[in-house]
């Protein structure tokens, strides 16, 4: 038993982090729809989970988990999880996935609207346990209002579609875990930005971070992040096993909760400046809210766990 990431896994995350720092700075969230995608594609990011036969690297979800955390930390726009994590399992036969030339959107079960569908070359719609795949030209999109300006929502109607012959459950479990990893990355960034602000903002002649009421809120976020992350790591390890769905739900519930806590505390400690459009913080707040509802809300995942633990055992 060795519950820690290895050097390769951490090195991949460090590379992705560097690329995102350069090519997805906060300012780009205001001016670009898909910053850093080209550079990530250049790294082979979209082929990491694809089999070698499809020009991919054939890595496991756990290998890319720290890198996925980085995409959350950077608040990277675009259907990252759908293209880099779902597509490799459902659409491995589609040419050019590995090069990042094909962008994929997903409308998961239980959700009314598809996020980032405006960018999708292919849209996967999951209904009644089965999935259908629809090319862009057969889709009609109607924008719908959501909280996250960089993750726009669309109501989808379509004419022709192809059924996908593979089971979608495992791909959705992976998407859930990947989204949980992004939420952990978001929470880490919200915490670090807020700590930074609390050190420089002064009131009553002292940095607000020296006041215990502020310190304790931040300490609570730090503790929550510290203990949510390992659930996500486990879920990435067990996603293929019998407990995969249950562990994915535990991870998503915990990660959703920690990201919304981090957002709540970040806003409170920034005060009114945090409640403005001008501050970049708003993008991270919005992403915490929108991803905590993606691929099942915190409440829905906790309910799945409740069923798992209180169901009668043989």
């Amino acid at each position, binding site marked *: *038993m*060795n*519950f*820690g*990431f*290895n050097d390769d*896994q951490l090195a991949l995350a460090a590379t992705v982090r560097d690329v995102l720092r350069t090519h997805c700075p906060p300012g780009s969230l205001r001016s670009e729809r898909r910053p850093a995608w080209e550079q990530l594609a250049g790294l082979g990011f979209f082929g990491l989970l694809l089999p070698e036969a499809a020009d991919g690297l054939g890595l496991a979800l*756990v290998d890319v988990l720290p890198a996925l955390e980085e995409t959350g930390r950077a608040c990277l726009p675009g259907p990252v999880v759908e293209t880099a994590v779902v597509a490799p399992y459902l659409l491995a036969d589609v040419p050019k996935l590995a090069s990042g030339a094909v962008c994929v959107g997903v409308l998961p079960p239980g959700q009314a609207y598809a996020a980032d569908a405006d960018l999708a070359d292919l849209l996967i719609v999951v209904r009644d346990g089965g999935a259908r795949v629809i090319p862009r030209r057969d889709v009609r999109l109607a924008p719908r209002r959501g909280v996250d300006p960089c993750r726009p929502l669309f109501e989808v109607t379509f004419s022709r579609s192809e059924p996908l012959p593979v089971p979608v459950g495992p791909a959705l479990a992976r998407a859930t875990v990947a989204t949980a990893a992004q939420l952990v990355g978001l929470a880490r960034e919200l*915490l670090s930005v807020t*700590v930074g602000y*609390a*050190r420089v903002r002064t009131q009553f002649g*002292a*940095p607000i*971070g*020296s006041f*215990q009421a*502020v*310190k*304790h809120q*931040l*300490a*609570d976020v*730090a*503790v929550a992040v*510290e*203990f*949510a992350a*390992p*659930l996500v*790591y*486990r879920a990435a*390890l*067990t996603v293929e096993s019998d407990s995969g769905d249950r562990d994915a739900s*535990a991870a998503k*519930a*915990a990660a959703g909760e920690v990201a919304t806590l981090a957002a709540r505390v970040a806003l409170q400690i920034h005060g009114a400046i945090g409640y403005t459009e001008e501050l970049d913080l708003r993008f991270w707040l919005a992403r915490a809210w929108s991803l905590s509802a993606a691929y099942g809300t915190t409440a829905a995942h*906790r*309910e799945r*766990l*409740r069923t798992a*633990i*209180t169901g*009668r055992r043989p």
Partner: protein
Amino acid sequence: MDLDFSPAERAFRLEVRDWLARHRPPPLPSMDTAEGFAAHRAWEAELAAARLSAVSWPEEYGGRGASLIDWLIFEEEYWAAGCPARVTQNGIFLLAPSLMRYGTPEQRERHLPRMAGGDDVWAQAWSEPEAGSDLAALTSRAEPCPGGWRLYGHKTWSSRAAFATHGFGLFRTSGARHKGLTYFMFPMAGVAVRPIAQLDGLPGFAELRFDGVFTPDSMVLGEVGEGWRIAMATTSSERGLTLRSPGRFLATADRLAELARDADPALADRAARCRIEAEAYQLHTFGTARRLMAGEELGPAASMGKIFWSELDLRMHALALDLLGDRAESWVDGFLFSLAGPIYAGTNEIQRNIVAERVLGLPR
């Protein structure tokens, strides 16, 4: 990264499970009564005879030289089997790590095997009436005399000291606030002990008065004036790990899940949340064990664990009471004890200060 136990680890788990199934005691009376204390000592002597009382200790002191992962496995099995809290815990989990690291070979040989065997039961004598959170403000003092030291002063809230055989604590050997403290061990004989009842009415605490109690030179741990450093080094590395193992919370979460089977969904949801958090603590602890085994120090990060497990424990026991109403008798003691978690081992307010200042780097 993996969560796969090795064949040796799996074999150890089965051995422990099998042994506990055959030897597990019936529910014992509270360890805060004379008869309960004796019954707990007898149980722990039985554990020690099977070399299961301190599995991660070296063999020469009564352990098995097992890894921290093995210790976590042992604890999961111990609590899952419904075994009782340990009367020797302050010695084994708080004094022993300091002895291993700072004690002389002679001190280790003299005290550790008797501690593992439950022959000596140690009480922690740190707090004083005017020095709780601000421990370095303590005023009890030690004065040199031929062959050793004479201890003077007043300690309080010392767990199980009403029945313990030995104590350990910090005493002032000079005026300097932190550098003036020395770590002493002492026999309880000669100390005036007044039991103090806790919320459950039983003498779980004691007040200790020292009026020139003699303790020999060989009972000083580390150097004179180094007591603060020794105490802090071991609290930080142990606080997040050995004081409260995840096995205890996993077992409680399982009992809650049983209770919540037919409960209202809102209550059952809280049980699900407790289970998720107990697993989070377990997984996090596997990561902590890995880091300690690789030779890393935990430092102030240990405070995060203390906040997490104590508040989880509170939520779990509050939920049990909500689920059971007036039929909660078997949970009452656990509930009362869970209320103390955010107070002892450094209050959670103090832990939050440590996290904010020393982990996050916020200004003092």
